[in-house]
């Protein structure tokens, strides 16, 4: 008791000299998976959001169903930074197995809110301790043993809210929204929140420096994860056939798509205007996607690294036979099974060149949840316009974590169904050659099975074919098709989403990055400016093949850092294949690939070292 009092006394003194930290810190909730803490954490996240404070949430979970450690970090940032931070100032410790390690990871002056029994005070003297008898409170308010696990989670939400000064009314309205129609469930949950809140108010005087204060920075914003956003994008692209095989972290793309399809794509007669098939494996999934794309449907699948590997042979067929389809790859770490629940960008090269022979693919690279939505529907248009499989490369961090975003805008252009001839067209034309470049855009016209015209049919094959889709082994006929495919890919540079640039026009140094790297990248640019007085130009790449602006960007800078989340500098390698030889030497890499989402500090430190700052 005496030591505890002493520690508190010291800290109280410390707090009085320290400034309050408002809306700018991270909370780390340490639990075990399978304990149902996910929804409690999401309530906490949404409560901070409800306070008007920019926020992001990250779930660091194991590839396991129950019993292993899980951490959920919530970052509140008045400056709007949403990338991971290396350290969290506030710990909510609920897992006995990691409690010591978690407490030791706190920065000096940090906060530990924890289940009383864990007795964290033994590990540190320089942090503020808030023990909460979660089990005891839970037992008192919840007689039903079965429900205690979930109720206990809400008790800590209440205590945390009180200690950080989150308004109870905001938590309440968030819960009400979540359990819209289930009044009983709401009451049970809110009762638990209130019990935790009241306990903290009565027993735990505020001694730390971290506060959430009402702000006005989240008005009109939404919170969503990238996979849900991608699923939404697919539905607003009018997807009709979905074939998939479950794999983390892509599963929730299909789950989100399916939920929306069931809600919005059933006719008044109760008939479905879509088909979702859980295939026997990823080979079958992409086979179905191509079969459906060939027969005129907008089709998609979602997978991750191991599934991508299985799809290789079909990807080449789609490229060579020129069949549309959309493939979402939500990347996780490899090689092989790797760390299935950790994030990565290491599929870029294998996706860009997926399959044997001279195969290359259009790859879209969303860098925010909003772009997961937008590039998802763009992918369907591009696939049908270019008559080729289009890959959308997301990752676990972007796909499975919660991000704040501007609201998504309804597509402004109608669906682009590409070049398809009808029976009437054939009457007029008297026939067609499937792979002939009649318009000079390197894209042939196709017909769909079922078109009632004696000249409508053509023979689709992955074997050598001429421009009339006839079998060939003739060198020039083979080359003619291959060169047209090359021209088509070249033209795609102009059709794919262009890069996004942040620059002031004076810097000699540039940075290239894509995807979820963007969050940390933008924060790092601010750090570099603030701490080293350097301004750096930044271009975010949004697709492969690379738009011409990317070449220009490299050409107009002395040094260009390529920041990416893989070991082998895959983006830099892909750029090197594309750039003129004298430009290649300008590229240098900043790499991060430990499975954790990238943080700004990692980039800033690496940049400073490389620049000799």
């Amino acid at each position, binding site marked *: 008791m005496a030591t505890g009092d002493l520690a508190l006394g010291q800290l109280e003194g410390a707090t009085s000299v320290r400034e309050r930290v408002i809306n700018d810190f991270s909370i780390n909730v340490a639990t075990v998976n399978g304990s149902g803490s996910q929804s409690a954490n999401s309530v906490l996240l949404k409560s901070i959001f409800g306070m008007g404070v920019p926020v992001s949430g990250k779930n660091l979970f194991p590839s396991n169903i129950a019993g292993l450690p899980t951490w959920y970090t919530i970052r509140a940032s008045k400056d709007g930074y949403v990338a991971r931070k290396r350290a969290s100032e506030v710990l909510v410790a609920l897992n006995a197995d990691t409690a010591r390690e978690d407490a030791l990871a706190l920065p000096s002056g940090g906060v530990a809110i924890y289940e009383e029994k864990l007795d964290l005070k033994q590990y540190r003297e320089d942090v503020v301790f808030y023990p909460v008898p979660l089990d005891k409170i839970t037992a008192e308010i919840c007689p039903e043993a079965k429900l205690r696990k979930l109720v206990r989670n809400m008790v800590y939400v209440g205590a945390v809210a009180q200690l950080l000064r989150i308004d109870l009314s905001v938590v309440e309205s968030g819960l009400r929204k979540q359990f819209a129609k289930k009044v009983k469930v709401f009451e049970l949950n809110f009762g638990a929140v209130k019990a935790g809140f009241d306990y903290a108010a009565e027993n735990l005087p505020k001694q730390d420096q971290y506060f959430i204060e009402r702000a006005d920075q989240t008005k009109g914003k939404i919170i969503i994860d990238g996979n849900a956003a991608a699923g939404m994008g697919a539905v*607003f692209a*009018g997807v009709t056939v979905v074939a998939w095989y479950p794999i983390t972290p892509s599963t929730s793309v299909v789950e989100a798509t399916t939920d929306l399809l069931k809600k919005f*794509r059933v006719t008044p007669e109760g008939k479905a205007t879509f088909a979702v098939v859980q295939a026997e494996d990823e080979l079958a999934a992409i086979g179905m996607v191509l079969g459906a794309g060939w*027969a005129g449907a907008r089709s998609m699948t979602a997978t991750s690294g191991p599934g991508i590997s299985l799809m290789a042979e079909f990807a080449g067929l789609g490229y060579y036979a020129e069949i549309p389809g959309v493939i979402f790859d939500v990347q996780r770490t490899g090689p092989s099974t790797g760390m299935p629940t950790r994030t990565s960008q290491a599929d870029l090269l294998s996706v860009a060149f997926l399959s044997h022979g001279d195969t290359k693919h259009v790859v879209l690279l969303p860098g925010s949840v909003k772009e997961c939505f937008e590039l998802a529907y763009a992918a369907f248009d591009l696939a049908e316009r270019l008559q080729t499989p289009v890959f959308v490369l997301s990752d676990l961090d972007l796909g499975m974590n919660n991000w704040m975003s501007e609201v998504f805008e309804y597509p402004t252009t*109608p669906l682009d169904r590409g070049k398809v001839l009808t029976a009437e067209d054939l009457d007029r034309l008297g026939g067609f050659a499937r792979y002939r470049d009649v318009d000079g855009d390197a894209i042939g016209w196709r017909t769909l099975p079922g078109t009632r015209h004696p000249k409508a049919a053509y023979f689709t094959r992955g074997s050598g074919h001429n421009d009339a889709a006839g079998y060939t082994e003739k060198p020039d006929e083979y080359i003619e098709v291959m060169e047209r495919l090359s021209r088509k890919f070249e033209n795609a540079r102009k059709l794919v989403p262009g890069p996004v640039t942040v620059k002031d026009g004076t810097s000699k140094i540039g940075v290239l990055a894509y995807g979820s790297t963007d969050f940390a990248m933008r924060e790092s640019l601010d750090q570099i400016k603030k701490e080293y007085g350097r301004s750096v130009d930044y271009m975010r790449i949004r697709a492969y093949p690379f738009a011409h602006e990317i070449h220009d960007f490299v050409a107009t800078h002395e040094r260009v850092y390529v920041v990416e989340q893989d070991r082998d500098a895959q983006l830099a390698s892909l750029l090197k294949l594309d750039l003129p030889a004298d430009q290649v030497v300008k590229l240098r890499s900043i790499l991060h690939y430990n499975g954790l989402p990238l943080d700004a500090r990692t980039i800033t430190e690496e940049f400073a070292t490389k620049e000799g700052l």
Partner: protein
Amino acid sequence: MATTAPAPKLNHIGLPVLEYRGGKTTLCAGCGHNAISERIIDAMYQMGVEPERVMKMSGIGCSSKSPAYFMARAHAFNSVHGRMPSVSTGAILANHTMTTLGISGDGDSASIGMGQFVHMMRRNLPMIYIIEDNGVYGLTKGQFSATADLGSKLKTGVVNDLAGIDTCALAIQLGATFVGRSFSGDKKQLLQMLKAAIAHKGTVMLDVISPCVTFNDHEGSTKSYKFMQDNDEPINEVDFVASFDDIEVDYGSGEVYEVEMHDGSNLRLRKLQEGYDPTDKANAVRTLMESQQNDEILTGVFYIDTQKPTFIDLLNLVDEPLGQLPESVTRPAKATLDGLMASLQ
């Protein structure tokens, strides 16, 4: 004196048989696969199927090439080795109003494609799935396939020491709703089975023994013309009466199993094996297993179920092809997105 060519015979949709032909075959002369292509042409012609309403699907192999040699007026998709089932599944989901005909080989289906074959049968999609079964990989020059019978001999003298997979028994067990075996050399039986297949709603799986004259037609092969002629053991005599045919065939009652098909046509199976009931699944599988033990090659229609819902029924799809639904149906309205956004704020 002027001569006029006699008018060609037309089927009931007004097309001559010529309109059901394809490109010139590049398969070996005498290859069983060619005879099957001929029977497909006859069956489609006689059934009056509109060629533009057919999708020809295949994998890779000599057999899988054959869609190029019949029905040039139908769209074709020659996919990758062993994966025709998934491509067909996708195509059918996009347009379930088509007649879908899949051509595979014994290597294509029973080895590399076994995974997809199994799941295709299970789903009971509306399609006709034909295995042109020669017991070898023709296109890669005659290695044994997984349907080669135990003890069958290659030209080189190599003896197959694994039992063959009976794709018919498998298909029945897995959920296909019309399963039979025929022989490329039995014109009449194969034609009747194909016509009934066209009338069926659900997955038809036909294993058609189709001798490879180049690699597996010698003494010691159990998939040769000679062996089939000697050992073909029909379980029933297949007779198909299309809904538009005005023929009355009378068999003495008790001898004929009569099946009323979806389109109103009749499949009559004259019992050659006593008491054989083609709707009894367990008995069908047992009969096939026994025949394998007795080194018999049973042909005929082994199993039929006209009631089981297809995958399209289970998915509760709209009548129009999914691939041709207009944007007004497939892209939800702006208000829907606005509502979703509001719920996330």
